[in-house]
């Protein structure tokens, strides 16, 4: 077994809508490692869903190949492809549960398709509903459950055929922040305890930060950035990545236009945020304006970024820079939002 579970090579996907071509994916190359939680982030319409649908061949790529567990999906026969898909379960933003089946019957569904004997399927479904914390809702129908509960059923259903990969397309986008956190926790547990590789598609940076190991940033059908979450988060190279990290970037860019200089401070986990700013104000005898901030605890460390607007007093600016260098806080001048 190699370290690599999914490899995407030179993948292109073009849709023909009426008489014009829509390029949804352009030369995507990606390697997903066994056992990792891999994030794919991008704005709406970037091509994320198309990419994930190409991974399990729900969508046939126009060009390029998807290699899953050393099998080239494009070369498989229909039957073999259907079988391969059972090893790549998928969950969705809208849960997509069967509305006429209760939780237990929903979890049994993929096993029915795979031909697992009824009694065995039922037993496994009960176990899985236990794992996702729904042992008391086995006979509830989707219409009787909350969004979080429905996503739990969907996760149990996805796990029923013992997949090696779980593809999540905006799985938490319809949920409130609390429920999102719980579902992400559950996904992390599944990854750690069952060793299932997870691919998470999202437009929310906070989802990536909280559970992903590596991330690919996709913009306008291209992958524009790829790397460890911490690296991308701390040193975003692309404009789109910065925009995703600062969701309120619009407000920031308006303030930049006022002509004042701004600094982007990077907290890499060695210093905490708040004392720095209050001390800076005290020691440098200068007021700074926090234009945008995105500070989080990633893997237990305080990391984040902050954009501050500098005072117009040149001496004060110098004092601030000296102070930052002294404290070992990385910073850079921001010229664009």
């Amino acid at each position, binding site marked *: 077994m190699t370290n690599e579970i999914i490899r995407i090579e030179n993948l292109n996907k073009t849709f023909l809508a009426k008489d014009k071509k829509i390029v949804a994916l352009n030369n995507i190359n990606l390697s997903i490692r066994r056992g990792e939680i891999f994030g794919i982030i991008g704005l709406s319409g970037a091509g994320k869903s198309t990419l994930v649908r190409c991974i399990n061949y729900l969508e046939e790529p126009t060009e390029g190949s998807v290699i899953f567990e050393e099998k080239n999906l494009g070369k498989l026969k229909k039957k073999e492809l259907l079988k391969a*898909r059972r090893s790549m379960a998928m969950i969705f933003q809208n849960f997509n549960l069967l*509305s*006429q089946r*209760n939780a237990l019957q929903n979890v049994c569904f993929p096993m029915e398709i795979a031909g697992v004997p009824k009694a065995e399927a039922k037993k496994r479904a009960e176990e899985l509903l236990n794992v996702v914390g729904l042992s008391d809702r086995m006979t509830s129908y989707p219409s009787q459950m909350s969004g979080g509960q429905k996503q739990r059923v969907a996760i149990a259903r996805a796990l029923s*055929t013992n997949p090696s990969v779980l593809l999540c397309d905006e799985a938490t986008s319809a949920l409130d922040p609390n429920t999102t956190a719980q579902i992400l926790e559950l996904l992390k547990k599944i990854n750690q305890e069952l060793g299932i590789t997870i691919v998470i598609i999202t437009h929310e940076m906070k989802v990536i930060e909280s559970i992903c190991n590596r991330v690919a940033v996709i913009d306008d059908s291209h992958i524009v950035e790829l790397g460890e979450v911490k690296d991308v988060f701390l040193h975003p190279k692309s404009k789109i990545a910065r925009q995703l990290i600062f969701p309120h970037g619009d407000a920031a860019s308006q303030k930049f236009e006022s002509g004042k200089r701004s600094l982007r401070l990077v907290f890499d986990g060695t210093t905490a945020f708040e004392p720095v700013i209050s001390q800076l104000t005290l020691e440098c005898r200068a007021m700074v304006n926090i234009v945008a901030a995105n500070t989080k605890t990633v893997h237990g460390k305080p990391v984040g970024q902050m954009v501050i607007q500098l005072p117009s007093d040149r001496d004060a600016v110098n004092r601030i820079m000296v102070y930052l260098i002294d404290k070992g806080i990385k910073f850079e001048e921001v010229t664009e939002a």
Partner: protein
Amino acid sequence: MNTALILMSSWAEKIANIFKSVTVSDYADAFLATMGITLISTVIAYLFGIPLGVLLYGTSEEKMFPNRLINKILGIIVNVFRSIPFIILLVMIQPVAKLIVGKTIGNAAFVFYLTVAAIPFIARMIETSLHEVDKGIIEAAQSMGAGNFKIICKVLIPEAKPSLLLGAAIVFATILGYTPMAYLIAGDGLGALAIQYGLYRFNPTVMYISSILLIILVQIMQEAFGFLARKTDRRISK
């Protein structure tokens, strides 16, 4: 006085006629005939209408086996058959009835005509119901490695069930609405009774009683299917 007597006797005769000409058992026979003709036609028409409806659905854009050509051809055939008035269709397909049923008149032939007329209608009803099924649910099933046949049997039809049941009530009422035409080809039923006595023998009572029985039949079926649809729909939380 003489005229009064004559009048009275003619009234008496008329009233007697009503009961003499059509007995309760006649009504019962007619009721059963209508019910039988309608049910048998509906069931046979569904046997053909379901696959046709699934095909119309599945070949449409972005569905399981999109095929513009087949979809267009089937669509045109269905529309053509649906736009031919029943009575004309009946005449047109008499040779086929002769071939399949062995006769061109009578109840069995009439069931054949009704069935042919109902198939395209049912196919459209089924197609419409299937289109109501959430695309995401089908995608989920595909992601689990379900093939088209399993998706049809285990996802599409069960998920569309409430809508299909309500559709069946409409189909039944529509087919029932055509049953009086049986009179034209020596068939039986409430409609035939109503035409025969009400229209040609000036006996409106028979017409009214037959019509009321037809209305009751439609109501019963409508209620039964509606009840089933509601009762079995799990989207309605109780």
